[in-house]
């Protein structure tokens, strides 16, 4: 008889819900999304889950497995079976639930629309050197799974969406701000509107990123330093003033 694993899957909507147990036959290499699909096919056809590529590229199947934000398609079941722990699958806590494992992440798209877009110094095409875009390309790996937004305690626990854009958009702002051909100045925006000061750099966003983007070290902290350049460093301020007045 095939080995089975019990998945406790959250079933509910905006009015409430609960975790329900489902017995799933274990197959070699099985990921949590496979198990959820098996449940859909055999036990609960009305179970809602958002997914698309099943290859950790589309960022659709974000959820929480045993309390940790993860992509369902990249989370193998055998790691839990080996440890002998039960498997709990819940929707992302930071976003409003639609149904079961599906959450409404549209807030993120509204935030994205607020960010001043790329402002080229000169009309394209222009030449870029790889060494100048290495930093920016790291942020381009983002698949917008919003796991970093989910784990960010400023959004998740303190619900400060009004003050802080979250790590995904710090990466987006860093991508624009560090772009060698961008002429925009977003430092004031990063401080005032995007609220970089609300981040207390606990690195959780980088820990859960399935693309291994160093969000804290390479995006948030450099942005904090740029803000410090502008608002906390009188020596740099003096240099800037001299540069402006120089003929």
């Amino acid at each position, binding site marked *: 008889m095939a080995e089975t694993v019990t998945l406790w899957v959250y079933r509910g909507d905006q009015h409430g819900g609960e975790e329900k147990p489902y017995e799933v036959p274990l197959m070699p290499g099985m990921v949590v999304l496979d198990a959820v699909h098996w449940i859909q096919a055999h036990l609960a056809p009305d179970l809602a889950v958002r997914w698309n590529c099943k290859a950790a590229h589309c960022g659709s199947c974000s959820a929480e497995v045993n309390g940790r934000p993860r992509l369902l398609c990249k989370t193998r079941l055998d790691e839990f079976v080996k440890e002998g722990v039960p498997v709990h699958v819940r929707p992302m806590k930071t976003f409003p639930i639609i149904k079961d494992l599906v959450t409404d992440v549209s807030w993120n798209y509204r935030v994205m629309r607020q960010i001043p877009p790329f402002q080229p110094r000169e009309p394209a095409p222009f030449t870029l050197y790889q060494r100048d875009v290495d930093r920016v390309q790291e942020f381009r790996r983002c698949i917008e799974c919003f796991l970093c937004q989910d784990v960010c305690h400023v959004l998740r626990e303190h619900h400060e969406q009004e003050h802080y854009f979250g790590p995904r958009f710090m990466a987006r702002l860093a991508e624009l701000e560090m772009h060698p051909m961008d002429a925009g100045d977003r430092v004031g925006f990063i401080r005032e509107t995007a609220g970089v000061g609300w981040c207390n750099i606990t690195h959780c966003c980088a820990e859960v990123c399935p693309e291994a983007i160093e969000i804290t070290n390479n995006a948030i902290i450099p942005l*904090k330093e740029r803000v410090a350049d502008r608002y906390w460093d009188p020596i740099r301020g003096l240099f800037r003033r001299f540069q402006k007045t120089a003929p």
Partner: protein
Amino acid sequence: MVKAGPLRSCQGVGKGGVCVAQAAEPEARTVSKATAEPRWWVEPVATVVAFSLFVLYSAWDVLFHNTGQYHNYISPYFSPNVGAWLGVHAVPAVLVAWVPLFFRASCYYYRREYYRAFFWDPPACAIAERPRRYRGETRVPLVWNNLHRFFLYLAIIVVIFLWKDAVEAFIFPNGFGVGLGSLILLVNAILLTLYTFSCHAFRHLVGGGLDCFSCRGRPTARYRLWRRVSEWNRHHGLWAWVSMFWVWGTGVYVRLLIMGVIHDVRFF
């Protein structure tokens, strides 16, 4: 069954928008014991114990002793001897110990550690926090962490003196020699150099603040330096811990020599 309350949805974004928070009801916000990371508390507890013991020992060494010098060895807590330069008759180490203290307290890596361990903000990733007002680093005193670069500048001066101490640790009354203390002080200077120069603020200073490294035709020295510092920066947390423990160990070693509890081992 693990019960969860309803979750509210909100509309709007950022300032001027309507409520944007994913405001979950308290029952839904609390991750059940069954789903929480079972050993999440290990890191914050270990951090609290390590930091507390380090601070207690450092305070004892700095506040209750007038010297940290044993022949050609000088404890890192007492270097440089600013009191002697200024002719100030205060507890000597207090005049300099605040530099590494504030440098470490405003360090981006240590911030991660103490926000998690002492503030529980959050205690670990995706672990529920106790409900309370949170302002991040937007208000005094935490907003002063933005002054980190100035403590970096001062810490670089201290590191220069620690190298002087390390060199002097090899110079005995009868000439060049190597003792266990010489090696300890040398490793101390190396580790503190790695910690100081892998700092995020230093990384920004040497090139991170630039948008374009080669817009003037070819890669600049700043680009190469930034790349090197970025490599070191990946291990900044490791250097932070190791250098802290080594400073501690070096201080203990010199203190035990001064107290006559142990004798230095001379290799030649």
